[in-house]
């Protein structure tokens, strides 16, 4: 499957869309990440798994500019338009909004929507970096601004239909059910036209049926929007059936990587998950 999709929407053959080399992150004395290597190729769904506190969210924060890694290289290879650069863009230490503008959009483990804005407006915020009307446009409302506004509304509504939330478009996002909030975060991220979608535990708190629907949705999104997906998830059933490749993290290190099958048979992974003590 991985091979298949890679061929299908690969525009810059050979290059990954994201390449992380040797990244470390220290918080004072605490080493939350240590020498992490990771790669996401075009059209792939890659999962990052590991026990609680392994450093997965910290890793996301490092590659989206929320933290600046203490050490190492994070390089993105935007695939379209003027954002495209042959030898990639170094993004460690880049400002968060620029990383997003480059085409890497994320969701948050502890949902971070804009609670007193409607579902539609939440998605419209995602369109911000792809539109440009300013103060003068807002006040005078020339035809160009009105057209842009209507496009933003229509595009955002369309994205809501893609995640099945069109009926709740005018609902305050704080009033949405939990599962809907998670899907809304994904729609908002998609609105920024990313080439790489970063999902931090999208199935957390969902029941098995919702999780299954989410899985189908991610598959659809990957096909339709030609995005690669990097996903942190604890639900093993979902991870195993959805991902092309898996990275396993423990105490800030990548301890194993490979296809779902390879990883699930790796003794190191089994030990990390079952907490088996070999010495002591």
């Amino acid at each position, binding site marked *: 499957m991985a091979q298949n999709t890679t061929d299908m929407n690969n525009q810059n053959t050979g290059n990954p869309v994201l390449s992380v080399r040797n990244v470390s992150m220290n918080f004072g004395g605490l080493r939350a990440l240590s020498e992490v290597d990771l790669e996401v190729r075009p059209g792939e769904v890659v999962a990052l798994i590991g026990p609680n506190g392994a450093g997965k969210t910290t890793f996301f924060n490092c590659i989206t500019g929320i933290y600046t890694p203490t050490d190492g290289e994070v390089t993105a290879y935007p695939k379209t338009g003027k954002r495209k650069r042959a030898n990639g863009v170094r993004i460690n230490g880049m400002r968060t909004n620029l990383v997003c503008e480059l085409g890497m959009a994320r969701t948050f483990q502890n949902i971070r929507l804009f609670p007193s*804005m409607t579902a539609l407006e939440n998605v*419209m*915020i995602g369109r*911000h970096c792809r539109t440009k009307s300013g103060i003068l446009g807002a006040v005078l409302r020339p035809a160009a601004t009105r057209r842009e506004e209507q496009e933003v509304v*229509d595009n955002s509504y369309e994205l809501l239909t893609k995640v099945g939330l069109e009926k709740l478009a005018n609902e*305050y996002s704080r009033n949405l059910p939990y599962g809907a909030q998670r899907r809304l975060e994904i729609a908002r991220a998609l609105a920024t036209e990313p080439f790489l979608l970063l999902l931090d535990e999208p199935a957390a708190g969902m029941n098995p049926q919702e999780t299954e629907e989410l899985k189908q949705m991610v598959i659809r999104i990957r096909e339709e929007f030609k995005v690669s997906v990097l996903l942190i998830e604890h639900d093993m059933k979902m991870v195993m059936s959805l991902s092309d490749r898996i990275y396993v993290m423990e105490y800030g290190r990548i301890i194993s990587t490979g296809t779902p099958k390879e990883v699930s048979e790796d003794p190191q992974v089994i030990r990390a998950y079952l907490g088996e003590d070999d010495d002591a």
Partner: protein
Amino acid sequence: MKDTLMRYVVKLVRQALVASIWLSFLTLPIMVIRVDTIEQTVTWRWMHLAYMAVGSFVLALAWYAMMDRRDRGQAKKDLETVERVSALSQFLSDPRFAKPLMAFGFLVAAAFPWFFSLYQTNILVSAMIYVVLGLGLNITVGLAGLLDLGYVAFYAVGAYTYALLNHHFHLGFWAVLPLGAVLGAFFGILLGFPVLRLRGDYLAIVTLGFGQIIRLVLENWGDFSYGPSGISNIDRPGLFGINYSVEQATTYIYYIMLALVILTIFVTARLKDSRIGRAWLALREDEIACQAMGIDNTRAKLMAFALGATLAGLMGVVFAAKTTFINPASFTFMESAMILAIVVLGGMGSVLGVILGAFMLMLLPEYLRAFSEYRMLIFGATMVLIMVFRPEGLVRAKRKVYKINVEAAG
């Protein structure tokens, strides 16, 4: 049904009774016992105890009943959606009613100086200045969520810009008006830069300090600002070089202010529902998510500070021209607090709310003058009551419902 009502009443009465007994007991020494040190007697005024008990019982009963109603209203409101808004705001947002209502309001405002005294017109001009100040601060605090306690500093910048330029170079009102706005924006950005990384309490403290610094500079740098004695004989706005009386000047300023108020309402209402306005809201709601979704926080913040300060600078010029005399005493922290109260009581983020808030907070103290020394007490109590019963302000900010072009959305 009858049973629950009965239980509800009993609960209320019991609560009120407890409160009343407590209060009577606490106030016993001052209300009942009077020691006359000359006659060496102690009088027990038991009637006062009865007054106290009955009075506090009635007040407590009313208070608890209202609190109860509010709590039940709150529970209902939590389920409320955008479509189910109150009848009043539905009425106001319906163009069939809103348009004539606005036209009527405009006509009343336009005719006002011809039917009312100079005193009333003057009060209304002040109130309108505060409407614009409130709408300006509403951008910074209400929309972008940046708590600015030194807002009055920008007001002072505008006022001193006109006063000094008029004093030294005899520049007229109309020449300085745009300059006041530009300088306001400049100082807004000047304050914005150092506080970009601050939020909440820290931001409030720094902006508070900024307001104080401007006032202290004006007070102490005598060579520049003429210190606490201020600047007098500032020119009123010019009208093609025609000489006119004080009354006519007031009417003239009234119309200038009316135009500026309408302009400000227009601009802020449009900004609120624009791409920039949404970015401010996102910034207020969740700064990290906002930035992660590609919004440049720095730009959005500086814009919010600058636009708010622009309006304050503009109003400063009008204020100086209206009073023809300014000194630093007009720009104390109390002013900032007042403008903030307008925004909070009116309803953060709501244009209509801020307008109502400004009129209420400016006109109430004026018309309460009849109550002389109780004036401020009633004023304060009103503010507290509003906050208790309408914690989101007089008018709750409502989000626009966008029209979706279904064909395009496919």
